């Protein structure tokens, strides 16, 4: 049996009721099976509140599944671990730290010594064109630069699996495309495995090898589309690929169907 980088096996997550009026609580996701191979980028789309972020919390070890198992490199995830790193829509930069100190945040918590931290952060600050802003505070940078600093903070940990939760959705269209391009190239060149959660159908298709579609709550995988187009490392040109149009049409109808089923 092939060993997957990231694997969800029959995973369900049930949140117990907070108040008595909540009744049975909420079943966020129900029996999700996903297997992601090394170096593969898989996008996950679905209506809001379908449990996409729950899936991500399970993969990062911040939360445990109610049923089923999550594996990273064949090992069951039982807490945060250094193979997995995530990046969210919010940059989550600490306002009282300079950009350099923010990039070093994860390493600091993991207890790397100062010299090693400095070396690594220098490298990634340069790589993401932030060297000139290393000693600036987050509020002095534009949204795009802050998100790039967040990316540097994630990549500096050399994670095997990246969990990306709508990483670009707070950015303006132009900045978004530039960052998509940067990230796609990094993922491709360093053969990173990634799970990309997004609302943006074009982003999903332009950046991934496969697109998974989730249903409304309780979230299930209702469709898988293998994106049969080259140039995953170059989302800008992939956007114009002739196959992308039909895929979008298919996804749109799929998401509508999911909606209608829910109403019945």
């Amino acid at each position, binding site marked *: 049996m092939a060993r997957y980088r990231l694997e969800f096996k029959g995973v369900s997550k049930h949140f117990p009721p907070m108040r008595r009026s909540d009744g049975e609580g909420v079943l966020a996701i129900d029996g999700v099976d996903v297997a992601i191979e090394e170096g593969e980028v898989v996008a996950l789309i679905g209506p809001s509140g379908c449990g996409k972020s729950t899936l991500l919390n399970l993969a990062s070890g911040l939360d445990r599944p109610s049923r089923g198992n999550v594996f990273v490199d064949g090992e069951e995830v039982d807490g945060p671990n250094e193979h997995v790193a995530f990046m969210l829509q919010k940059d*989550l930069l600490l306002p009282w730290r300079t950009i350099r100190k923010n990039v070093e945040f994860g390493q600091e918590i993991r207890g790397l010594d100062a010299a090693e931290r400095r070396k690594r952060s220098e490298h990634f600050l340069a790589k993401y064109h932030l060297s000139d802003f290393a000693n600036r505070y987050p509020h002095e940078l534009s949204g795009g630069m802050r998100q790039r600093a967040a990316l540097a903070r994630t990549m500096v940990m050399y994670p095997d699996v990246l969990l990306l939760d709508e990483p670009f959705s707070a950015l303006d269209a132009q900045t978004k495309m530039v960052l998509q391009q940067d990230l796609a190239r990094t993922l491709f060149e360093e053969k990173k495995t990634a799970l990309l959660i997004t609302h943006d159908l074009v982003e999903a298709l332009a950046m991934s090898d496969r697109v998974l579609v989730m249903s409304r709550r309780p979230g299930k995988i209702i469709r898988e589309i293998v994106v049969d187009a080259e140039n995953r490392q170059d989302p800008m040109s992939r956007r114009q690929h002739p196959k992308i149009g039909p895929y979008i049409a298919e996804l749109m109808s799929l998401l509508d169907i999911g909606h209608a089923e829910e109403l019945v």
Partner: protein
Amino acid sequence: MPSDTTETPATAPSQPAKPAQGAPDGGVGQTLRRLSMAREFHLSVIVLIVFLAFWEWGPPLLGIREFIIPRLSNVVTEFFFMLENGRLLHHTWITTYSVLVGFFLGALLGMVIGYLLGMSPMTEIVASPYILALQIAPKVAFAPLLIMWFGYNITPKILVAVLIVFFPILINVLTAVRGVDPAMINLARSFNASRWQIFWKIEFPASMAPLFSGLRIGATLAVIGITVGEFVGGNTGLGYLLIEGEGQANTKAVFVAIILLTLIGIIAYCLVILMERWVLRYMPKRKFGDVGNHP
């Protein structure tokens, strides 16, 4: 590796003054602003001079008698008289010392309990009715009780100040720790942060701005606490001099004491502001007339 972009930093390094709209010369706008700030400063000084002049010559002109509002020059004379004969410096020092100690202890206690409650929601739920009750209780009403307990010395008035300073700081710290973005804490947890690291690297620094608003309020409240403590018991401090002046119908001495108490409050407040400037130096600058330089 990321390609070059059209992004520019929100504040370019050594950014020249932005030209105001419609005014091609950016320097003019800035000069005008500086001029207007200088003018405001001059106006403030003029207001002060007018006020002092009115204090000196107003009361006699309006037929207000000396024991209601003494003239400025008489208050100044009384100040020097008290300095030489009334051990004014000694009393001022006692009050200043009590204010600083009471403020410091109250702030420390408020912080410690605020962080403890902030980190443990359970404790907060259990403790909240008592905290609320103590918050509503008029703290200065405890002054006589504290004197009965600790005697006529410096301790009871410091305790009044501690009680009164404690709450705004507790509440601000507690709210700040509660208000930390859970996603921020999850980020730290994803790096396997311990509870202590989460506190020390996220919750504590995140609480700094609200803590300092609490400290500012606390600095002024400490003076009130000490003054009331000195009213009620003891034979030292400016509050004591004030009551003594009142007993002797010495309005001038009362004015001297009020002015010195206010000065102590101003000094304590300024110390907090200075510390705040230093601790929160990462924050966007908020200056008068500084518009739109930051996002």
